[in-house]
């Protein structure tokens, strides 16, 4: 439905349209189809590519319906529509997870501080919420304003979910448009959540050089009582740490975490330790090092109560999203809950943050007393593996296609080298154990083979500073900083975890800006050089050429995309306010940013990536992500690459596929590196910038492929673009393929190439 007067008035009131920080742009608080024409323009070039998991639709009682060939379901949907529907559902799940996290934090913090609690991100961050400003048109000032952001996201989710119902949307393209919309909302939700926790828990902000924190399961001092927080919501941990401090026992305990709660715990206190990413959850919890496990939300194993029981760890669940069938003791007195846990050995659900934090602080020293925490020895592992017949059933269920049987049978024979290699690639699902006819606890045997080294990670710093954007805005847009490489997402890696550090280092050495978050930020810290330094100790932590920075947990991803928006705003002076289409167009054509989600597995990662795509940021995915079933690919040079020259107001066929894809899966680390270097190319690059980008693309391609890139002709516009070191070689190659110079642009934009209310002048500053 189009917006009526009442709706417009409601929006004006929500965003305080009378505030004059910027004029209100064309799309304040857009609804699901308000940016549809932008989506359709993107999808014209970057068409959805589908890899169905199965041939059927089994959503309603009409079915199952065969969707192969030209078949349609009983409702009329075809295979593409069904894949589009899956894509929308994934995006909704991801957005909802971040949104619910944000909602929980805001409700908790408003309860604590009141809705008028001010947003203050420090002296270096004046553009505090680029997503809220750009998407909604609201410049948030208080926690109450952040709540408006979440309410807006919640409203969008209802409409999105509704569209997935049987007998609603049928077009795959419109499903994709809705996915893109939900992906955009996800970035609003993440931004709201991270600003809320930054101001509420006083996380670092406006500082680049945050402290280093301990990383790795080997960094945990198991002689102390150990609490391990699993999930993505640090609220309970912050209260627990406060209690430890108040009791004067903080130095006597180890506060550890897995996944993003761990990242955010270090933002609250750099004395906390990060055990590792999701892929090490089962491995670590199986060790029994954790005397107490606290679960919150997202990426938490569903069998933690069983794991805790098996090792004798105490368990407190704290989220209504993960209740595990446990007794809800929220209403009971603290002393009674402590008694239930410590004397009756009960696992409990406590849905009150403050109560859960206090209980945790009180029970930890008690439950830790007398517990033996022994890591599986080589002798013990050999004993556990003695029944292995190398039947290979474990190999057949490994999602990472690993040769588990060879490693396990070696352990049986007292050899651990293969198991150590396997552990580096293991994604920690435990399916191998389930399949083993001899019930060998394979993950447990890994304790004897794994490295117990300790590493460092730089504590998440939150938003990119406005002053940093002022410094790098021009070189990014001109191309003389070759690109922003955002390495994000989960730990479903196809090969060794160390690949993340290797990729990050490759780009940092080449003076790209490397930004990390979440599990990828942890993984990047899990490799040391010959001097024992991790990537965080080798490169400066600034948002600048050659910098390597950790912004924080999953929800801090919004600061990475927010930085691209800030380039448009702070450097190019484009207004953000309710001006999404113009800002996304600017980023697509001028900001050489690319995301890498090498181990993406979650719906959140899908949603984040889809949000990046709507704002013109391409995303490279690892091989496992083919199971998301949808990508956005161009047909490279065979597509129409016409754009508008904003200054001349002329349509120009650039013949240049840049950026070439919006969402692509690649097979290997080396190919990912080459692809990312190419995806940083933008139509706006100056000759100097293009030379630099091509220099990296060519050198990487030659290193890994042995020749000049065979699509080089697509990216050389004229002689000035050719890198000097390759001048002769490239000139000869271009001649051999019949290359001709391409038209030059002064201001590339898609605005004007499709029907839109946005005037071309809106992109000219």
């Amino acid at each position, binding site marked *: 439905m189009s917006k009526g007067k009442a709706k417009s008035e409601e929006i004006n009131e929500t965003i305080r349209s009378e505030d004059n920080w910027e004029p209100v742009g064309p799309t304040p608080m857009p609804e699901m189809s308000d940016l549809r024409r932008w989506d359709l323009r993107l999808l014209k070039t970057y068409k959805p*590519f*589908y*890899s*169905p*998991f*199965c*041939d*059927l639709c089994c959503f309603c009682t009409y079915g199952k319906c*065969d969707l*192969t*060939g030209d078949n349609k379901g009983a409702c009329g949907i075809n*295979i593409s529509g069904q894949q589009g529907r899956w894509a929308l559902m994934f995006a909704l799940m991801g957005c909802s997870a971040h949104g619910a996290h944000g909602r929980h934090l805001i409700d908790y913090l408003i309860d604590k501080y009141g809705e008028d609690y001010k947003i203050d991100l420090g002296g270096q961050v004046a553009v505090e919420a680029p997503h809220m400003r750009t998407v909604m048109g609201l410049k948030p000032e208080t926690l109450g304003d952040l709540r408006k952001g979440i309410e807006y996201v919640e409203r969008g989710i209802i409409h999105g979910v509704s569209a997935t119902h049987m007998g609603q949307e049928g077009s795959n393209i419109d499903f994709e448009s809705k996915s893109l919309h939900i992906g955009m909302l996800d970035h609003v939700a993440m931004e709201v959540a991270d600003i809320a926790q930054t101001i509420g828990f006083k996380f670092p902000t406006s500082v680049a050089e945050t402290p280093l924190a301990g990383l790795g399961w080997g960094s945990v001092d198991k002689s102390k009582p150990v609490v391990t927080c699993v999930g993505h919501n640090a609220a309970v941990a912050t209260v627990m740490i406060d209690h430890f401090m108040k009791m004067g026992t903080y130095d006597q305990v180890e506060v550890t975490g897995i996944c993003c709660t761990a990242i955010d715990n270090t933002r609250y206190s750099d004395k906390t330790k990060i055990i590792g990413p999701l892929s090490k959850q089962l491995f670590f919890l199986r060790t029994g090092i954790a005397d107490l496990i606290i679960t919150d939300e997202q990426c938490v194993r569903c069998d933690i109560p069983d794991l805790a029981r098996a090792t004798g760890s105490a368990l407190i669940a704290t989220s209504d999203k993960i209740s595990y069938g446990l007794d809800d003791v929220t209403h009971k007195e603290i002393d009674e809950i402590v008694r239930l846990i410590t004397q009756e050995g009960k696992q409990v659900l406590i849905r009150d943050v403050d109560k859960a934090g206090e209980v945790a602080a009180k029970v930890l020293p008690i439950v830790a007393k007398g517990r033996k925490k022994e890591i599986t020895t080589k002798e013990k592992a050999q004993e556990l593996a003695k029944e292995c017949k190398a039947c290979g059933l474990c*190999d*057949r*269920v*490994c*999602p990472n*296609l690993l040769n588990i049987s060879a490693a396990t049978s070696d352990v049986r024979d007292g050899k651990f080298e293969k198991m150590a290699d396997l552990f580096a690639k293991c994604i920690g699902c435990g*399916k191998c154990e389930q399949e083993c006819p001899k019930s060998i606890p394979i993950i447990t045997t890994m304790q004897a083979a794994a490295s117990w080294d300790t590493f460092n990670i730089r504590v998440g710093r939150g938003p990119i500073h406005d002053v940093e954007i002022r410094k790098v805005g021009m070189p990014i847009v001109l191309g003389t900083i070759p690109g922003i490489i955002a390495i994000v997402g989960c730990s479903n890696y*196809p090969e060794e975890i160390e690949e993340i550090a290797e990729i990050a280092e490759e780009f940092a050495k080449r003076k790209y800006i490397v930004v990390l978050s979440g599990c990828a930020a942890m993984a990047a810290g899990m490799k040391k050089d010959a001097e024992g330094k991790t990537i965080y100790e080798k490169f400066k932590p600034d948002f600048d050429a050659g910098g390597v920075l950790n912004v924080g947990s999953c929800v801090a991803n919004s600061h990475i995309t927010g930085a691209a928006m800030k380039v448009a705003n702070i450097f190019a002076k484009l207004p953000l306010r309710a001006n999404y289409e113009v800002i996304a167009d600017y980023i697509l054509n001028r900001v050489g940013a690319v995301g890498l989600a090498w181990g993406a597995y979650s719906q959140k990662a899908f949603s984040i990536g889809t949000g990046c795509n709507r704002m013109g940021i391409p995303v490279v995915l690892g*091989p*496992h992500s*083919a*199971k998301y*079933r949808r*990508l956005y*690919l161009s*047909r*490279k040079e*065979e597509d129409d690459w016409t754009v508008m020259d904003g200054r001349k107001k002329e349509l120009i066929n650039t013949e240049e596929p840049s950026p070439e894809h919006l969402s*692509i*899966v*690649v*097979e*290997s680390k*080396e*190919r990912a590196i*080459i*692809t990312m270097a190419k995806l940083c190319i933008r139509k706006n690059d100056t000759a100097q910038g293009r030379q630099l980008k091509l220099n990296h693309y060519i050198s990487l391609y030659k290193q*890994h*492929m*042995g*020749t000049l890139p*065979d699509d080089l002709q697509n990216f050389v516009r004229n002689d000035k673009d050719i890198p000097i070191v390759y001048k002769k070689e490239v000139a000869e190659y271009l001649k051999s393929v019949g290359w001709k110079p391409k038209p030059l642009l002064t201001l590339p934009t898609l605005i004007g190439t499709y029907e839109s209310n946005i005037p071309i002048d809106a992109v000219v500053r």
Partner: protein
Amino acid sequence: MSLPLHYVNVLTGLKGCRVIEDPQALGKIIKKSERPLLVFGPRCPDIFLNGRYAIEYGVDIVKAIGAATCATACTKKKLMEYGILPDSTYDIIEIINHLKDPDWKGVKKQGNHDLVMFLGVRTDLGNQGLSTLKHYAPHLKTVTLCPYVYPHATFSLANLKADKWKEYLEGLIQSLKS
């Protein structure tokens, strides 16, 4: 329907592959093709089969029938070491994206291919890509040459042990040469 080796990554559907157990029969199918393409995945230079790498068998197949070639990931460098300059160097998803289009000109610009063989791609990624082709490329036949059942392929090998696979590939090459 035969189960694939890595059955963890594969769900069944209504349209499954035909497992060709006789290499001579597969040879006949391939020889009927007018514009065959062999896609080399990144695993084929690493798979060692008692004296020869899988990539060498791929090279023999290409030479036997004059098939067009596509090197994915970073396989191009290895192929060149074996004396083959691949006709194209797309990544796996990109070549599949092109193959979907019946009007695509193919890697040699002579028209889209009618039969595509795959060798050395990760099974999970390969299976997803074959699903795309099963659903969106009815104009072409797909053949997998790895020793695993690929349910979404048109023609697949059975799940084979290394020695049987080697035997199969040798039989196939002999058939293609005859």
